[in-house]
């Protein structure tokens, strides 16, 4: 349904270009839940924004983002505006700032219905209420005229989710939907997303840095580093036996409930400098298993399972 092909995103800045995303390809099938995992600066959010044409003004893109036959990177804004919210919804990271503080909740939700389906008045209100109920906002009827600041963070994120669900889009991009929330609220929101996905049969692209969030949610996981795909596999395989050195490093940095006293190991070194185009594996500098070739060649993602971009995956090590 959505196919990202050879996507690169770079930003013009005062000090030259920043290569945020480098030749990333992946696709999502209808009804699939795919996770994009990576640390800050890995380019994961930029990929989501590029799908809806929401990148900052100084961004340059190349490649294709194919959605039901249209290339989202090159179609005119007028056409893109028909896809936004209608076909592809997005849930932003920070519910504190992503709602307009000067408009009532009803208006902010209602304008989506008005724009795409011509619904107004009581018909629109009924639909808004229906979705607010679906995301479990208590007493929704009396809260229609409330402003965002009158809701708690968790409730605001439910409103943001309601906004993405209004038109039952085929794909929802969830860009760190729980990062700004308390842990208990996080769990509620993830369960809500899961229920909704089952009911609405939407595809979800979940973008997160939190492996714990991915574990119970996504069928497949894509691990990004330095704006490049490191590994793609079924989520259970990634947790059971990660084969890419970066993914293994990530796993060692996550506390394990079965070994509460095991020492956590951070990956040594710093995230890569992205001001130069990539010529070698971006992780090589921090990789314990790197060999000479790792610093001079850029391995491609293998096309069949296990899919990864590495010269020295687990089974090569002896």
């Amino acid at each position, binding site marked *: 349904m959505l196919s990202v092909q050879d996507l690169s995103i770079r930003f013009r800045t005062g000090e030259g270009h920043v290569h945020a995303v480098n030749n990333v390809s992946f696709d999502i099938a209808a009804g699939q839940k795919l996770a994009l995992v990576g640390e800050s600066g890995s380019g994961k959010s930029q990929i989501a924004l590029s799908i809806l044409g929401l990148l900052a003004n100084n961004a340059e893109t190349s490649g294709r983002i194919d959605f039901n036959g249209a290339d989202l990177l090159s179609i005119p804004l007028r056409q893109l505006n028909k*896809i936004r919210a209608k076909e592809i919804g997005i849930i*932003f990271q920070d519910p504190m700032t992503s709602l307009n503080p000067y408009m009532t909740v009803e208006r902010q939700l209602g304008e989506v219905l008005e724009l795409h389906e011509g619904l107004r008045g009581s018909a629109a209100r009924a639909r808004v209420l229906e979705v607010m109920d679906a995301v479990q906002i208590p007493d929704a009827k009396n809260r229609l005229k409330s402003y965002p600041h009158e809701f708690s963070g968790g409730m605001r994120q439910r409103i943001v989710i309601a906004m993405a669900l209004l038109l039952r889009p085929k794909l929802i991009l969830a860009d760190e939907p729980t990062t700004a929330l308390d842990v208990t609220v996080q769990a509620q929101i993830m369960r809500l997303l899961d229920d909704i996905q089952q009911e609405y049969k939407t595809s979800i692209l979940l973008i997160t840095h939190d492996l714990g969030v991915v574990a119970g949610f996504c069928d497949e996981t894509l691990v990004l580093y330095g704006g490049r795909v490191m590994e793609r596999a079924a989520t259970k395989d990634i947790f059971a036996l990660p084969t890419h050195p970066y993914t293994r490093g990530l796993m060692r940095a996550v506390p394990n409930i079965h070994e509460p006293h095991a020492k956590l190991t951070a990956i040594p070194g710093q995230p890569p400098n992205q001001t130069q185009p990539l010529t070698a594996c971006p992780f090589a500098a921090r990789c314990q298993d790197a060999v000479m070739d790792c610093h001079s060649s850029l391995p491609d993602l293998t096309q069949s399972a296990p899919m990864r971009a590495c010269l020295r995956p687990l089974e090569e090590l002896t």
Partner: protein
Amino acid sequence: MLSYTLRRLMAVIPTILILIVICFFLMRLAPGGPFTSERPLPPAVMKNVLERYGLDEPLYVQLWTYVKNIIIAFDFGPSFSQKDRSVNDLIAQGFPVTLTYGFFSAVFVLVMGIPLGMIAALRHNSFWDYVMTGLAIFSQIFPNFVLAPLMVLLFTLALGLLPGGGWNGGQWQYVIMPAVALGTSYMASVARLTRGSLLEVLNAPYIRTARAKGLSERTILIRHAMKPTLLPVISYMAPVFVYMITGSVFIDIFFSTGGIGQNFIDAAYTRDYSVILGLAILYSVLTFVLTLIVDLVYAWIDPKVRSGLK
């Protein structure tokens, strides 16, 4: 909201009383008086004059009489320097003039400043942005006492389009130059403020949310970006309104409009106690009312402020 407004209005009364007391004594502290001149009046004449205006009484009696007359009869007393004219007369004559060109000046500031700033922001870093910013800085560095003579040189002497002064009952030709000369530098500030504000708002996450909904840029600008963009402009306008009314002294002198600024200057020169006090009260009431209006507009736009007012 209504009770808030009423409470704010009630607070005006004690504040004005305190202001009267302070102004009253400040004026008396300064050496000289309304009837001091280089050639002293004969003592008998002086005594008569002082008696006539009640200036021979003790200060607290004078203050009491002044306040009492205002409360009972809304009478701000006679002018000491202009024979047979009361402060009420002077204000009734000059204030409408000042208010008229002050109002049009404010309209000019908003109607020109806001769109200019928005165009500059929407064409960020383009030729038009630079033209607007340049123009704004250029007009900001011209105080009205430089701009007014330049305008007269151009529009009156060179082009012969507008009269160089006078009021003529407030005909539009006579209002234009005072209003524009008074407002230009504020207009430039408003343009720059609007530009900066809109640029910031357009980068806000909720504008990105609006884009993700599929709204057109036009709708986003009008529906989502306009209100927050105008908030800083509104806060800025409260003191500006007041300043435009009170700071019109030069305009009155240069264009001979006969506004209240002229009275203020004359009264200060001649120690015309009652006129100075009357104008001080007028200006402070004006300040209160305009600030209140601006606060109410602000609350009307910003729901967070509104819920704080209850």
